[in-house]
């Protein structure tokens, strides 16, 4: 806890708990890119104030606005995509400001790297599970700055010592004289005061909000259907378009016969881009009917015959024999000992946010306005400026609530496309992708191939661990300056370059393997850790098995120098009742890791039917994420994150045929449903360490816990995701019996 009894100096640099991806982005500051650093004192400039604020009398920094009537608006530096950050950020501000969450309204931040840039990522980016880690101190200080100024204004009016005043629920009290004044009544006076150099932060023992389970500030509107997502934007005179880009990745539009489409009632026009066709209608249905009536000829381009198998083979070749960049090498491989050697494969994945990609755009000769839900408001604005040729100050971006992000909305491809279409017409245009377009033109999680080895000592413990991972680099495209000087992608080896375990020597290598042009890979919830933890934690189980040891005891032995992570392992083991005898073909799997500055252990209990169907019976998770902001959100993020990861591990792979993505909707890209979802029991270790990340932590640890449970249930090791049920059939005879679609009685396990 960074509390100083004599007040906190606002000019100092904050200590921050970083994870690998965040560390990578810190390079941005070291290579000449302007490094954003949100500041508890920095005020909005005139333009931003005019745009978003209506010139409130009291706007002491970029986050807090109080008007003369006492209305309090909090401007959110990170975007809300479900992770609960609007509630967490509000709690941090409100705690120090001295108001309740029922007294505030939240607002989306306008685009500004300067005012709302995430310090850990070098720009206005919500991702990498950084929001709380990167801004918790700044937001507390910003609240304290505002409270200090309001109290100073009241004390000056009363001619009393500010230190003798207290604040409660937006009212300043002076006990000795019995006087009270609401924030609104001193807002004008406070707005004229200079910024304090030092502020006093609330002692954690006096917290009214922080650490408590608080209900989300965005729930009331969301349960009424009143929340406006990007897809809900409606403008006067607006038309609605839907679009089809060439299904062959990197393909182009050759020609299109649109006669039949134009004859569809409600179709307004047909628009062309070099790689896509859009139909504009009075409503989405007309546009979609029109799209289906088009007769399109594509130029399939260089990927016309591309298949998943070609990609897999080439990637395997790179992993086995390619020239690597060494991330870690702490000692040579022993000549003696038992060798364990495996290769793992991870598939491409789609994000499939519930809200398909969409943007609403109005372009005039000297202005462009964009309404969309984005994780990168400033990048989206810059993309619109680039496409229109307008200066950035002629582009206005109105961010919206995001119907899921998962990394997909770190991109700007759909914004660029929507702007390119809207600039061809004279009215505001809403471009909505069909679900099929959303999956076929996703920027998919990369596929990976890993070659893993270990040499075990006489006790069966690893004396040396070797890891060669190969895949495309998202970081190299997304933030080239964040790449290492040697060409290293820190995301590629995150959670394996630094492991929780005490292993005497290890070598970790990355072999960059770019995908063909047009197959663009992107950030997917949990990023590098989701992939690496699947491999590492599966392999730890393999080593334990080879050593003839219990996977829990094996991990305990490797964690003797890591008490924080050992604690989450022990907590999960205690809560699930590790070691209990289980029915036939029921198994429990362990996985643990330290992704995004937190420590997590997940244990999955799964049953595998004789026919190879996997039923998730129970999940127990134990977490150490340091200081708690909203304990309710933490539980929700771990539960949801784990199930998101299990969903992908159970069902999902994006595959390529004839150069295009084969999947297109939830019928062939399954998502876990409630009848398939186990209970997730959540526990945490309590401490006051700086906060760790949350949004991706559960996802990152899910797949290996499942794979290890399946091994425990069946003896079959899964070297590839998603789960291949054909490998899990008990015997050929099992398939002759009726395969029941119903799952076993569900609540008897716990």
């Amino acid at each position: 806890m960074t509390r100083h009894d004599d007040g906190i100096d606002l000019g100092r640099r904050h200590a921050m708990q970083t994870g690998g991806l965040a560390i990578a982005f810190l390079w941005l500051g070291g290579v000449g890119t302007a490094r954003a650093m949100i500041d508890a004192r920095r005020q909005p400039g005139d333009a931003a104030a005019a745009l978003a604020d209506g010139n409130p009398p009291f706007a002491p920094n970029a986050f807090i606005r109080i008007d003369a009537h006492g209305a309090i608006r909090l401007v959110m530096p990170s975007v809300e995509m479900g992770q609960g950050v609007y509630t967490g950020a509000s709690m941090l501000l409100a705690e120090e400001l001295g108001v309740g969450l029922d007294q505030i309204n939240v607002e989306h931040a306008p685009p500004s790297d300067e005012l709302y840039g995430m310090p850990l990522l070098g720009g206005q980016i919500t991702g990498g599970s950084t929001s709380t880690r990167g801004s918790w101190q700044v937001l507390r200080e910003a609240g304290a700055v505002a409270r200090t100024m309001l109290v100073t204004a009241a004390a000056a009016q009363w001619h009393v010592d500010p230190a003798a005043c207290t604040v409660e629920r937006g009212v300043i009290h002076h006990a000795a004289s019995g006087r009270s004044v609401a924030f609104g009544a001193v807002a004008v006076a406070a707005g004229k005061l200079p910024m304090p150099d030092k502020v006093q932060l609330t002692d954690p023992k006096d917290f009214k909000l922080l650490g408590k389970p608080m209900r989300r500030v965005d729930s009331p509107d969301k349960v009424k259907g009143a929340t406006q997502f990007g897809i809900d934007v409606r403008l006067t005179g607006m038309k609605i378009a839907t679009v089809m880009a060439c299904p062959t990745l990197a393909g182009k539009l050759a020609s299109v016969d649109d006669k039949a489409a134009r004859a569809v009632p409600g179709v307004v026009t047909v628009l062309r881009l070099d790689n896509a066709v859009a139909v504009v209608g009075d409503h989405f249905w007309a546009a979609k009917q029109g799209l289906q009536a088009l007769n399109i000829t594509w130029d399939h381009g260089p990927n016309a015959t591309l298949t998943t198998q070609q990609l897999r083979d080439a990637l395997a070749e790179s992993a086995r024999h390619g020239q690597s960049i060494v991330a870690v090498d702490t000692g040579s491989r022993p000549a003696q000992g038992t060798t364990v050697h495996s290769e793992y494969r991870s598939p491409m994945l789609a994000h499939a946010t519930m809200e398909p990609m969409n943007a609403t755009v109005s372009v005039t000769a000297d202005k462009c306005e964009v309404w969309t839900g984005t994780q990168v408001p400033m990048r989206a604005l810059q993309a619109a400026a680039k496409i229109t040729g307008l200066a950035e100050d002629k582009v206005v971006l109105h961010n919206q609530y995001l119907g899921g992000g998962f990394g997909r909305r770190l991109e700007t491809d759909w914004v660029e496309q929507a702007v390119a279409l809207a600039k061809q017409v004279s009215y505001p245009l809403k471009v909505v992708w069909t679900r099929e377009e959303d999956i076929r033109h996703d920027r998919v999680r990369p596929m990976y191939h890993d070659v893993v080895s270990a040499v075990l000592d006489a006790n069966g413990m690893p004396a040396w661990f070797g890891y060669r991972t190969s895949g495309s680099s998202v970081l190299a495209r997304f933030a080239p300056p964040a790449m290492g000087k040697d060409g290293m992608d820190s995301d590629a080896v995150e959670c394996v370059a630094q492991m929780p375990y005490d292993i005497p020597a290890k070598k970790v290598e990355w072999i960059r393997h770019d995908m063909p042009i047009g197959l663009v890979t992107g950030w997917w919830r949990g990023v590098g850790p989701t992939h690496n933890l699947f491999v590492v934690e599966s392999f730890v189980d393999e080593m334990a098995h080879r050593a003839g040891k219990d996977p829990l005891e094996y991990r305990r032995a490797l964690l003797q120098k890591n008490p924080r992570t050992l604690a989450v392992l022990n907590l999960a083991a205690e809560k699930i009742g590790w070691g209990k005898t289980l029915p036939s073909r029921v198994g429990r799997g362990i996985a643990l890791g330290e992704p995004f500055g937190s420590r997590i252990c997940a244990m999955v209990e799964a049953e595998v039917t004789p026919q190879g169907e996997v039923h998730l019976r129970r999940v127990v998770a134990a977490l150490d994420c340091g200081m708690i902001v909203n304990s309710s959100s933490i539980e929700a993020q771990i539960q949801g994150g784990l199930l998101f990861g299990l969903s992908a591990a159970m069902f999902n792979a994006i595959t390529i045929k004839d150069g295009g993505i084969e999947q297109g909707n939830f019928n062939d890209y399954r998502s876990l449903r409630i009848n398939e979802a186990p209970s997730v029991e959540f526990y945490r270790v309590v401490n006051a360490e700086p906060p760790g990340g949350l949004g991706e932590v559960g996802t990152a640890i899910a797949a290996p816990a499942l794979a290890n449970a399946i091994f425990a249930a069946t003896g079959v090791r899964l070297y590839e995701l998603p789960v291949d049920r054909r490998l899990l059939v008990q015997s050929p005879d099992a398939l002759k019996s009726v395969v029941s679609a119903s799952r076993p009685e569900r609540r008897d396990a716990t």
Partner: protein
Amino acid sequence: MLTLSVNGQSHPVDVPDDMPLLWVLRDVIGLTGTKFGCGIAQCGACTVHLDGEAVRSCVLPVGAIGQRAITTIEAVGNTPSGQKIQQAWLDVDVVQCGYCQSGQIMSAAALLQRVPNPSDADIDAAMSGNICRCATYVRIRAAIKQAATGKQELLQTLVSEPKGAAP
């Protein structure tokens, strides 16, 4: 010209008979609480009530509706089961991104109307057509039970300090 009864109001709409109700609600009438997720009745984000029964509006042609009463998320709070479900959703704090939750609430309200005290199997059957990519399923189940029984479900973080944990 069709006349639809939506949330107790008559809406004359000039649209083709085969146009799905979803797009009439969203793009013609302007009720955007009902969401588009898949267009093929696979995700349930578009769920509305037709005479109190949950249906997927993305595949329901408006010409097939006739006189039946349409209820959307904007008005389901006026029904006893809808009111209970929405309150339980708030008490349990189910939502994350929230995009699927209109559909989840409509399916849950229809279930509670039909089965006042649903079992886990009832919940599975009624709710398995509604995908939540944030995977809020644990809380959805808890909220439906709480709405049914009025008894508080176990919701909050179970704080525990393990023996021998590091500080």
